[in-house]
């Protein structure tokens, strides 16, 4: 009972933050919803309906914590085909059926379905979807809408559209293209501009706001009609009352046709894969490291899809980009998903007429960017690094998906993978004979530290990974586990990739998953596979130092520090800082450190969010290890951002007698009393008299940095000086403090 009470109390305490993050998410969800629906040849409002129904139903029934549900970009391709063959009302019927199927999958506990697809094949499919979106929307973005037979034709026509864009007869088209290119520029350069005020509004919303602003500028100031051709403006958005009165009637007359069920299957397949992958990825972003109930989420998504289909909306899936924005803005439970739906309703009710002021190309630019992110050449390069055979699987899936269809594409990928595995091992029997065998053994060791021990025999590939996964899931991530693959003749890339994700989860929750027994595989000529490449980090080239690195070396000499340019994988010391709770550290490099590593300056590359919301940040930090305990705190310059956060439930800790300090600095901490005691006159004066840095303590060490970009040589010197003086004061304090 008391447990429940604290639970409810915690919920209400977190509610303001969740409402806030739901609001930010709705800013992205609105333009994305409109765009995705239009890209699928459905009325724009269909996307918003899906997001609203999804937000309400999944937040109530779902089993995940911080995922946001709504229309998904993966589905654009299949729904496009469905609309073309079944008509709009037939598509709604197909969506309803796929929702029912999805619910069924949830009840059948088929959450593991996604495990049966090799990861390179999934990558290939996603890239194909990206190309389909990009190919079609690119022309609209450039003000050259056209109707072509297949997705490949759209891609081929891209160069001619670019050339044609310089010679439109109608200036309305030229303006349309300009709007599109400007919007694309916003999407591309948004992550590169690191200004917190600018980042308060997500990039897609900037596009919406600027478009509406321009439109009013023309109407009110210039008193001219909107320059963009009217056919390139968003078509009528129905008002709330109209949505209810105009609910489409799903047309089930095609239920007996082959094409109908083909579409239903394709939609269900993509919807489930997209949702499952998103849930998996978002679980890794969750700062509280909770485990989502995948099957429950599938059921909820299915029910939401049925509802959305009846109301004239698209499929509801779990989406990664919006979820990651949710996490980054402090969303901590499903109420943020509900809030996002709520704000969408408000937007539609209040601003539905304003939305028609947005030029279509601007909206499509968002989708072009999304498509590009899915099919980005960087992804392909990454796959190539893993192995040539992965590239074969990837391109088979990609090409078959583009030329034939999604289901054929993913099946081709699966068969190709299997074929390659058989070819590499030159042994078909190994796979067929041992497939049904329960090849995974788990027990808790009685000796030593009682860790879990898992042993896998024969082979471990995407075909039978679910067996291993079942066992891994049954281990609490806070415990230690050993996975022995020494009797496995073959381990494929899908498994290696998934295992490294498991390792990360174990690591973040305080446990440890060790994979042993693969050392021999590398030297065995029969296994020239991605095995060795995935476990250790990719080596970093050190023989070719840049100018900055050479200067860093000199600085190191000046301050009598050691310098190492290469990448360090072990970033454990940083994991405890509040700052990194929702961020993923990619690498630490260019390190300057003293003898006992208690003082180190380093460049760090970390990322925040996933997918289109992913932002890569490279900056320079100082880490100072202390020999004594100090309270945990975070100190930064006071600003607009912080005021906003304080509305959402974070409290600034005031320091008595130093109102100036409190006004200028923003101080956070879990135990305000301890922090208040710790910040004595000396320390406060030091901070007041020096320039602003972000200073954070995790109890045993300090982390100091300033900007969210790599520091120049001068800045590093300043940073070191600041760090050294702060360390001095903190050390001096130790005497007083005890």
């Amino acid at each position, binding site marked *: 009972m008391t447990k429940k009470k604290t639970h409810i109390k915690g919920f209400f305490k977190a509610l303001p933050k969740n409402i806030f993050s739901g609001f930010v998410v709705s800013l992205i969800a609105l333009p994305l919803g409109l765009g995705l629906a239009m890209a699928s040849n459905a009325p724009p409002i269909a996307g918003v309906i899906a997001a609203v129904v999804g937000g309400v139903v999944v937040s109530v029934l779902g089993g995940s914590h911080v995922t946001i549900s709504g229309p998904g970009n993966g589905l654009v391709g299949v729904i496009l085909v469905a609309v073309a063959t079944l008509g709009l009302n037939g598509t709604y019927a197909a969506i309803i059926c796929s929702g029912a199927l999805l619910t069924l999958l949830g009840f059948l506990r088929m959450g593991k379905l996604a495990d049966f697809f090799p990861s390179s094949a999934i990558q290939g499919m996603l890239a194909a979807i990206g190309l389909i979106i990009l190919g079609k929307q690119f022309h609209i973005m450039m003000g050259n809408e056209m109707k072509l037979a297949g997705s490949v034709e759209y891609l081929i026509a891209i160069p001619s559209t670019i050339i044609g864009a310089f010679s439109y007869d109608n200036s309305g088209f030229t303006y349309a293209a300009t709007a599109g290119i400007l919007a694309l520029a916003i999407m591309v350069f948004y992550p590169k501009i690191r200004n917190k005020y600018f980042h308060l509004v997500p990039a897609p919303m900037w596009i919406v706001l600027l478009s509406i602003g321009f439109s009013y500028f023309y109407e009110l100031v210039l008193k001219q009609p909107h320059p963009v051709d009217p056919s390139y403006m968003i078509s009528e958005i129905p008002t709330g009352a109209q949505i209810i009165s105009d609910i489409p009637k799903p047309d089930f007359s095609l239920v007996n046709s082959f094409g109908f069920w083909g579409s239903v299957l394709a939609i269900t397949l993509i919807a489930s894969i997209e949702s499952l992958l998103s849930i998996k990825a978002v679980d890794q972003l969750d700062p509280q490291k909770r485990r989502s109930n995948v099957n*429950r989420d599938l059921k909820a998504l299915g029910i939401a899809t049925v509802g959305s289909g009846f109301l004239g909306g698209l499929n509801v899936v779990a989406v990664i980009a919006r979820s990651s924005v949710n996490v980054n803005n402090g969303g901590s439970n499903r109420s943020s998903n509900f809030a996002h739906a709520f704000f969408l309703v408000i937007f539609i009710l209040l601003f539905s007429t304003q939305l028609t002021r947005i030029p279509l190309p601007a909206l499509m630019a968002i989708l072009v960017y999304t498509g590009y992110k899915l099919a980005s050449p960087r992804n392909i390069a990454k796959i190539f690094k893993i192995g040539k055979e992965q590239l074969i699987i990837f391109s088979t899936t990609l090409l078959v998906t583009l030329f034939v269809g999604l289901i054929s594409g993913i099946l081709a990928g699966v068969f190709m993978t299997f074929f390659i595995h058989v070819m590499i091992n030159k042994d078909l029997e190994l796979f067929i004979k041992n497939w049904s*065998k329960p090849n995974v*053994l788990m*027990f808790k060791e009685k000796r030593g530290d009682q860790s879990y021990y898992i042993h896998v025999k024969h082979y471990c590939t995407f075909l039978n990974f679910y067996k291993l996964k079942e*066992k891994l*899931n*049954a281990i609490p991530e806070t415990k230690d586990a050993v996975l022995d693959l020494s009797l496995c003749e073959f381990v494929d890339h899908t498994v290696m990739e998934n295992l490294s994700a498991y390792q990360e989860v174990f690591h973040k929750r305080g446990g440890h998953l060790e994979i042993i027994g693969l050392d021999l595989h590398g030297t065995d000529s029969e296994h020239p596979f991605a095995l060795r490449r995935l476990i250790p980090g990719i080596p970093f080239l050190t023989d070719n130092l840049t100018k900055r690195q050479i200067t860093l070396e000199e600085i190191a000499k000046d301050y009598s520090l050691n310098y190492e340019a290469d990448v360090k994988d072990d970033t454990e010391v940083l994991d405890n800082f509040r700052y990194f709770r929702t961020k993923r550290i990619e690498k630490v490099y260019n390190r300057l450190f003293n003898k006992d590593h208690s003082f180190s300056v380093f460049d760090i590359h970390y990322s925040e969010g996933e997918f289109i919301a992913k932002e890569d940040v490279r900056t320079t930090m100082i880490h100072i290890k202390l020999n004594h305990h100090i309270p945990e705190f975070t100190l930064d310059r006071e600003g607009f951002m912080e005021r906003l956060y304080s509305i959402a439930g974070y409290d600034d800790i005031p320091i008595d007698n130093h109102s100036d300090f409190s006004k200028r600095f923003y101080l956070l901490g879990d135990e305000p009393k301890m922090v208040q005691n710790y910040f004595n006159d000396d320390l406060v004066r030091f901070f007041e008299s020096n320039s602003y840095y972000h200073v954070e303590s995790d109890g045993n060490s300090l982390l100091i940095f300033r900007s969210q970009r790599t520091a120049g040589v001068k800045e590093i010197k300043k940073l070191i000086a600041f760090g050294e003086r702060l360390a001095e004061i903190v050390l001096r304090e130790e005497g007083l403090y005890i």
Partner: protein
Amino acid sequence: MSDTPFKNIAIGIAFSPTLEANVSEAARLTCMMGAKLSLIHVGKGNADKKQLIDTFIGNCGQEQLSYEVIFKEGDPVEVILETVKKRNIDLLLLGALKKENFVKFYLGSIARKITRKAICSVLLITNPRVERKSCKNMVVSGLKGAHTKRTIETAFFVAHRLGSNQLTIVEEIERQKVSIKVDDDQSLRKANLLQEKLKRQEETRVRRILSHIPEEHKKDIHIETQAIFGQRGYSIGHYAEIVRADLLVMNAPQKSSLLHRFFPHDLEHILNELPTDVLIIR
């Protein structure tokens, strides 16, 4: 429990390159058990063959062994099973074959048939040697069943006689028993609690059986229990393989029908992939 569970031991022999190793193993084992040995050869007998066997037995230095060579023609499976019945054999030794180029062993079709149909205990020998390799580490299946008590008792007898110093009783906890499906943190916690409970139950059951084992047999043997999670029958073989057990002792299944060959269970898994020497108690 009778003084010795194995009084009459038999081995089926063929005149193959492994004959000497097979005969030596059988002779040694019979001596250690204090039993009588019958060597069954399906086929015509002659003085040369008998002579050869006598030499092999003489070579391995088990002079006090009482043994008998039986030559009989007919279908190998039937002949052996018949002899087992007629002569009151209570332990039958069968040699496994080694797969080419692999360190894996498998059972020939004849040996398989015999194992399925035999009414006595069967010892499957994977790697017969002329020189003795001591059997140090034994793994015993503690799977709940009507014969478990007898199996464990016999295992201790064998361990005592063979001078093993490590005996692990394995309790297999079936997946079906852990009825809670792991979906999220909460169900994971519940499932783990249930697992712990099942483990404790199994442990008490095995402890109770252990308390009935004569002290003499338990002397100098390090006894351990281990709960494992996996598929019944299969996983214990897997376990024996990774702890590098020298002998795996397990119950015979209640029955083995044709259906079981297609949906392998307990014994069939073991027959498919012999992890080590296996003693099947009937």
